């Protein structure tokens, strides 16, 4: 077993930290949601949960991208990184655009009954 060189130790270190952070993020989200499901006395608010889920997902995504996929760790011209960010841009446009369009279509197309039930739930009329 050759003595592990310095670069290998840092690579190992990165994988371990990446793993632990991801594991922690997953467990935190899980217990937040369990707390909400179980009801109980101090229930976390709906919006807080949404934000924390989104935030922890993004943290995990960044950690995986940096520690496991070594984004940006390539010689000039960093083609893989450019492709990665262009993909992210396309995904944001596609998913964000589709949801914006479909919600807008649903909103303008509700029949009278649905608008009644929708208003009761959302605007609490």
């Amino acid at each position, binding site marked *: 077993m050759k003595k592990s060189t310095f670069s290998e130790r840092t690579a190992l270190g990165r994988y371990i930290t990446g793993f632990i952070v991801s594991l922690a993020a997953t467990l935190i989200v899980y217990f937040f949601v369990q707390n909400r499901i179980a009801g109980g006395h101090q229930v976390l608010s709906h919006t807080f949960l949404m934000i924390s889920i989104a935030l922890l997902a993004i943290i995990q995504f960044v950690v995986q991208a940096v520690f496991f996929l070594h984004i940006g760790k390539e010689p000039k011209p960093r083609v893989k990184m450019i492709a990665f960010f262009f993909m992210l841009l396309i995904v944001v446009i596609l998913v964000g655009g589709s949801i914006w369009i479909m919600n807008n279509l649903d909103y303008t197309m509700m*029949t009278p009954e649905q608008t009644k039930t929708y208003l009761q739930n959302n605007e609490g009329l």
Partner: protein
Amino acid sequence: MKIFIIAIPLLVVGGLLAYALQGAHFAILDPKGIIADKERGLLIFTTLLSLVVVVPVFVMLFVIVWRYRATNTKAIYSPEWDGSRFFETLWWGIPCLIILVLAIVTWTSSHQLDPTRSLTSTHPPLKIQVVALQWKWLFLYPDQQVASVNTVEFPINTPIEFDITADAPMNSFWIPSLGGQIYAMPGMTTKLHLMADTSGTYAGSSANLSGTGFSGMRFSAIATSASDYANWLIRAHSSSQVLTSSSYTALAVPSADVAVRLYRLGEPTLYDTIVMKYMMPSTATSSTDTKAVNSDMDMDTNMNMNMPGM
């Protein structure tokens, strides 16, 4: 000799087009309603605006190709001149300004001519519910208790509120003389507000492929004076056929090139049952589900209640 080669085909094209255009009626350019009129104005404005770019392109094209043709060795020849900051800023800048103007016009016109926007008028609005069936149009007048197939009549200068749905593949409800089209889709209601300012019979059609009878899915939109409209209502009321959910299912059977028919509307909420048909599992087949749904509806607190998605 070259001139002949180009002139003859041009004459032929012009001649053929002139022959074909006798007695042609341009529905979109001859609006009979306030919405179609504004849309035509927008069409003409945008065309003129884009000519600001198109005319120079055509002129420059023919001048440059003629002046700098290879045989004209007198013309200046500078093969290495391949860039000029001035010209670049010109043809990036001017189109940006034009598009800026057009963008403002687009924003205002889109909001002003939004099909869901109701029109202002002294006359009370008339609600007409439209159902696109397999290859015919059904029009329901909930307040007047009448219905008609492949013909719709309404008084002029009265804002018409169309609630449009379909009990067939995706369709599109379009009366070119009165205004833009809107899709008719099963399980959903789309809205269209039109108003005729002159009386007459205008062609209406389906603008979206919906199966083999698609070409025959035409109707006539008749704008008349208030009195003629009243007579039409009386004629519809005295019709022998009554439109109930059972006679509706008979009507909904696919059929093409259907003649005009008038009904007395037996069931005022027929439109809603047609729309809701796609929302809920039909009570006949899976009754257990609906019970689960009702109990689910009351008890459930969070937003995950089954809000029937479109």
